[in-house]
């Protein structure tokens, strides 16, 4: 009887192992697939031009493209109008697959892995969201139009995988100009030392120098990502070494120094920052009880809605934790992007769609919400997008002071590098954990993910 039980159990385990092994054989997602059958962008100029010309012309044999996106984005009137414009221009049909935001990535990856991929994906930009091995390289005139700095983030071995579908926003500091004037602080604050001196002045005035809406766990990373960019901008090799596991962040004196400077800002942040949500900080900034906040520039509309006159008195400026480097930073990832799954059924038409959707008028239509066009930095060289008050303030300041625009900290890391739970170590430090320890904990976390993702060097 015992033997029989044992043989049944062994049989079951064997059957399961066989099932898993059989699954392993159906490798639809390995790194090689992405490269197969795809034209090299560099060598496809003629084909690209032809594709672009055809993209706006009605198709000879109309096809139905499946377009998959998260609920909140797909609900936008601009998105719907742009899809209609594409249908009218080409005769092709768009079938929309709308997935709840919080389930989007899982559903998308599952569909691609089960060979049920849509033709087009609408998602956050970056290989942390969709690895390159799931995607088909994008070709066509877009390759000549994309801003090289932006394009580099989603390009691997010369192949471009994710097309930006939204303008980029600056990440920097919103500041109250009246409070700054009263304190006699001149902007921009071009070094860490200048920033600390200004924060001390504000503190002495009885104003909270920095507001952070810590209730949202990502806000604490803003000064780190923006101010810390200098460490990689000045030493791009360090970013490469960290991305390929040649050095741990805590073992790099430069990186550790940057993180220590970040932690030194705690002194200037409102005490109960973990309980602070954006409306509280927003009100403080407008009233002048808080002098500065790290927050993306696209939020100007919220300030304007609260008090348009006071919002006009706010400015936007770059920030650095470095001694001699400052840039107007933008996130190279996270914005909306379009891409083509490696197992899409209509790859050529999907590629034409992306070339179509990223042309000026269509791009602006795609980013129009409730009749208001999106604003920010255009990821494409051949057109610009309108700027809101914060963005204009930043644009004026960087033009007057000859400050470059550059990606924030994470933009220097290898596109394939998986960040793991980046926010955790940032919040840990804010909660009092020693920077070196927090960095080591982050290392363990991202090393695990990169090992699983088979990132080079891990």
């Amino acid at each position, binding site marked *: 009887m015992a033997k029989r039980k044992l043989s049944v159990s062994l049989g*079951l*385990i064997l059957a*399961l*192992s066989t*099932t*898993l092994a059989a*699954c*392993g*054989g*159906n*490798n*639809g*997602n*390995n790194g090689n697939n992405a490269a197969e059958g795809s034209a090299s962008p560099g060598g496809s100029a003629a084909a690209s031009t032809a594709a672009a010309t055809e993209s706006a012309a009605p198709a000879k044999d109309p096809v139905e493209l499946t377009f998959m996106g998260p609920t909140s984005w797909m609900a936008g009137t601009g998105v719907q109008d742009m899809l209609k414009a594409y249908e009218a221009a080409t005769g092709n049909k768009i079938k929309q697959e709308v997935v709840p935001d919080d389930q989007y*990535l*899982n559903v998308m*990856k*599952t569909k691609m*892995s089960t060979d049920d991929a849509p033709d087009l994906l609408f998602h956050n930009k970056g290989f942390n969201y969709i*690895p390159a*091995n799931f995607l088909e390289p994008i070709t066509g005139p877009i390759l000549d139009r994309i801003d090289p700095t932006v394009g580099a983030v989603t390009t691997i071995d010369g192949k471009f995988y994710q097309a930006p579908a939204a303008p980029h926003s600056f990440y920097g500091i919103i500041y109250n100009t009246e409070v700054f004037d009263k304190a006699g602080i001149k902007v921009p604050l071009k070094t860490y030392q200048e920033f600390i001196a200004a924060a001390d002045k504000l503190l002495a005035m009885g104003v909270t120098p920095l507001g952070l809406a*810590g*209730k949202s*766990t990502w806000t604490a990373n803003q000064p780190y990502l923006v101010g810390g960019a200098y460490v990689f901008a000045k030493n791009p090799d360090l970013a490469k070494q960290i991305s390929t596991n040649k050095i741990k962040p805590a073992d790099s004196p430069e990186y550790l120094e940057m993180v220590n400077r970040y932690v030194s800002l705690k002194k200037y942040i409102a005490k*109960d920052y*973990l*309980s602070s949500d954006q409306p*509280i900080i927003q009100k403080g900034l407008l009233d002048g009880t808080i002098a500065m906040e790290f927050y993306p520039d696209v939020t100007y509309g919220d300030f304007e809605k609260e008090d348009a006159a006071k919002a006009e008195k706010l400015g936007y400026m770059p920030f650095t934790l470095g001694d001699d480097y400052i840039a107007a930073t933008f996130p190279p990832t996270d914005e909306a992007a379009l891409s083509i799954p490696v197992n899409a059924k209509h790859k050529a038409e999907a590629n034409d769609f992306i070339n179509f959707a990223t042309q000026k008028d269509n791009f602006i239509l795609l980013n129009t919400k409730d009749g208001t066009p999106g604003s920010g930095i255009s990821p494409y060289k051949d057109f610009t997008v309108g700027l809101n008050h914060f963005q204009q303030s930043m644009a004026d300041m960087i033009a007057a002071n000859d400050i470059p625009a550059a990606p924030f900290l994470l933009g220097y890391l290898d596109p394939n590098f998986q960040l793991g*739970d980046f926010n*955790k170590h940032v*919040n*840990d430090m*804010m*909660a009092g954990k020693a920077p070196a320890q927090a960095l080591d*904990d982050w290392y*363990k*976390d991202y090393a*695990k*993910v990169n*090992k*699983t*993702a*088979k990132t080079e060097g891990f």
Partner: protein
Amino acid sequence: MIPKMIMRNYPILFIVPAVILYTVFSVVPSFVGLAAAFTDWSTFYLFNPTFVGWQNFKDLFESTGFIGAIRHTLMYTALHTVFVIAIGYALAIILNNQVKFKNAYRVIIFSPVVINPLVISLVFSALYNPTYGPINTFLRKIGLGALAQNWLTEPKIAMYSVIIMGVWVGLGSTVVIFLAGLQSVSADFYESATIDGAGGIKKFRYITLPLTMHALTINTLLVLISGLNVFGEVYGLTNGGPNGATEVFGTFIFANFSQGLYGYAAAAGLVFTVVVSISSFTLLGLFRKMEVEY
């Protein structure tokens, strides 16, 4: 004429559908989970997991997140169990006596059981709101503003806030089981004890407690397991925050699964199963020794 073999085995035929369903939806996934724990199965390479031996377990115990999750889960379980059992037992004793409106009290105490933990979490989020929440508002109104706290965002306090909600949720079913146990104790024992001059404490020590030990056993086990299993309450209230201060087994596994690390999450799940099993059987053995026959 039905063949003899079918006649002899026909009871088995009735249970076959259930066994098939149970196997497909419970046994097979359990074995797949077991197998997955030893692979690098992830969203990056969904259909070609490779065997990695004990690596996932090694990584787990090197991860401060996992160690923190174990510590928080054990803390939650210990405090949750102690308070739910103590308060539940006391409430059941009170409700077992002739109290006015006792049926209404029973309904009120039992009501959290039928409400989804996520809904309860939303209600408690509102109660705990540091600015507008009724708790802090009340404390400020009565001049105890210094006691007003950031209940969910202060790392040192957040876990206790979750435990308080967990205790409230857990009381309903616990009281019902204790009540059933108390009602099964014959009134004769108490009458005899009264004649012998025993007071309330002695009656509790020598009659109530030993004769309701089976209810105490089952309740403690159930509450302990539900404490170790905690997920909805934490997910809804703090999602493991602030800064990992309320991260428990459930949220740790969920976070890693959401990150696409299926093998790693399965390994964490396996460790979790082992912890729950060991705790349950140890406690069961302990209580069995304390039960009395009558």
